[in-house]
């Protein structure tokens, strides 16, 4: 089982790399170098804050866009091109192994991409700050949360890919990402409502993925420490949420006729 999962995951990663997904790194490098030079003219402290905000937001957004655009095709493209026939028809591969392998492969791609971006990002921070201090360890927490975002959005894109077309899947995925970014506000609005509306809004607010809780970019840019409890809770939240979404994907995919 592990061997099959690994093979499917590695193939997904290899496909993304050979489809030149990592070319976004060039754009990211240009962005970071450009902003370092541009904001280097302003005061050191502001420059650092802007660079951290810009760099981490870019790592997050580049990854989210890649996760959605590749994620929505992970299953539907395989069905359209019939490439999964030779995998599922005559290999001892279970459908859940296929889904999980694809998921792990895309998460691996996004992680490698984010880590390469992070190297450039830290180099830029070192350049503008003339070195790295203990406080910069917080940046690693923000990057870890970004990776957790990728896990969530990949699971959601994959879920949509199991039952919808790529166009609708991308709309759903971007919409849910946008709504999830304001999950905390939604919960606030729900508290202000009354009766059944309140219950419904609260239910909806807790159902959408809470991307807001995973965004600590502004916090770390201002050198505010992230509580270890939040790291633990966010990790647990993402693991449980992604597992639930993957289970739903498998449930749908197990029942699909692959015509």
């Amino acid at each position: 089982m592990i061997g099959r999962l690994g093979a499917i995951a590695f193939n997904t990663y290899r496909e993304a790399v050979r489809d030149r997904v990592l070319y976004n790194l060039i754009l990211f490098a240009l962005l970071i170098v450009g902003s370092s030079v541009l904001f280097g003219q302003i005061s050191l402290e502001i420059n650092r804050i802007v660079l951290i905000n810009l760099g981490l937001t870019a790592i997050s957004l580049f990854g989210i866009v890649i996760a959605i655009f590749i994620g929505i095709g992970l299953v539907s493209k395989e069905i359209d091109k019939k490439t999964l026939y030779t995998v599922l028809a005559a290999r001892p591969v279970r459908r859940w192994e296929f889904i999980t392998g694809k998921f792990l492969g895309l998460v691996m791609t996004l992680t490698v991409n984010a880590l390469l971006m992070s190297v450039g990002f830290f180099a830029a921070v070192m350049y503008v700050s003339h070195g790295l201090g203990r406080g910069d360890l917080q940046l690693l927490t923000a990057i870890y949360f970004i990776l957790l975002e990728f896990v969530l959005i990949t699971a959601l894109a994959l879920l949509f890919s199991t039952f919808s077309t790529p166009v609708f899947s991308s709309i759903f995925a971007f919409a849910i990402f946008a709504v999830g970014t304001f999950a905390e506000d939604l919960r606030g609005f729900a508290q202000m409502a009354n009766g059944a509306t309140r219950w419904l809004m609260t239910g909806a607010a807790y159902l959408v993925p809470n991307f807001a809780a995973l965004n600590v970019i502004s916090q770390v840019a201002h050198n505010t420490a992230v509580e270890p409890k939040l790291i633990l809770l966010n990790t647990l939240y993402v693991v449980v949420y992604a597992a639930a979404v993957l289970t739903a994907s498998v449930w749908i995919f197990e029942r699909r006729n692959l015509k």
Partner: protein
Amino acid sequence: MAAIEIQGLEKSYKTGFFGNKLKRGLMPLTLSVEEGEVFGCLGPNGAGKTTTLKLLLGLVFPTGGTARILGHDLNDISVKRFIGFLPEQPYFYDHLTALELLDYYARLSGVEPRERKRKVDRALARVGMSDSGKTQLRKYSKGMLQRVGIAQAIVHDPKLVLLDEPMSGLDPIGRREVRDLVQELNEEGKTIFFSTHILSDAETLCDRVAVLNKGELKGVGVVADLLREVSGEVEVVWNGAQAIPALSTLGARCHATGDVVRALMPERSLEAALAELRKSEARLTSVTPVRATLEDYFLARIGEAKPNEVHA
């Protein structure tokens, strides 16, 4: 033991906006393929050949009936280790080279790491692709993809090989090579089940065939036995056009070139026809039984021609 045992397997699809209409992809099908056989599944487009294969391979789920493959239930995934499958018009991960693709499939099939390279190289060699193993599949022609498709179906040394239109997209030489390969695989003891439109290939290769049309089994059996059902004509050639009217009344279809007449007639009328020829003092040149082809049987069974309308 039967390699494939199908009992009343059927498939209907819900169609219409509300899914309230049923379209039958396959009527209840009962069929068995013995181990070591080359079995052909024939039928026009939409006959249910691919649906049958997909049902057997778990890609679509039956709405009724059961099937066993190599003695295992359809849902038993472990049996897939022993199955090879070539889909119709195969499309593979085109970012991979043929070597990488076969290695990937061999891994998924559970081939031991120490055996993998040898098996991959052997499968590529068997389809004549050893020199192109390091080229990405996106640069392959349709015929080359078909060969790689066959290689992936046999890379893990399966006991049962299912081929959906294996000759599709191949030139005459390629078709000949695939025919030879199928025979070679069969000589190694593998069971081959393939679907095709190309009846001459089926006739050359198959021990038995099944004819499907519109999701329904129209006939199944040993090729020679099936051909007997639609054969029964003879070709008679003689000199002497004066005998034509008499033989025409016996059901002969006559064609005269000068004084030489060539006629096709039912075998049962032969004795009477020879008597007529003697009576009219015509000189008999030859009497040849006309061999029916699988195409004749096929056309007869799918209702586009009546039995005994045999190709000359």
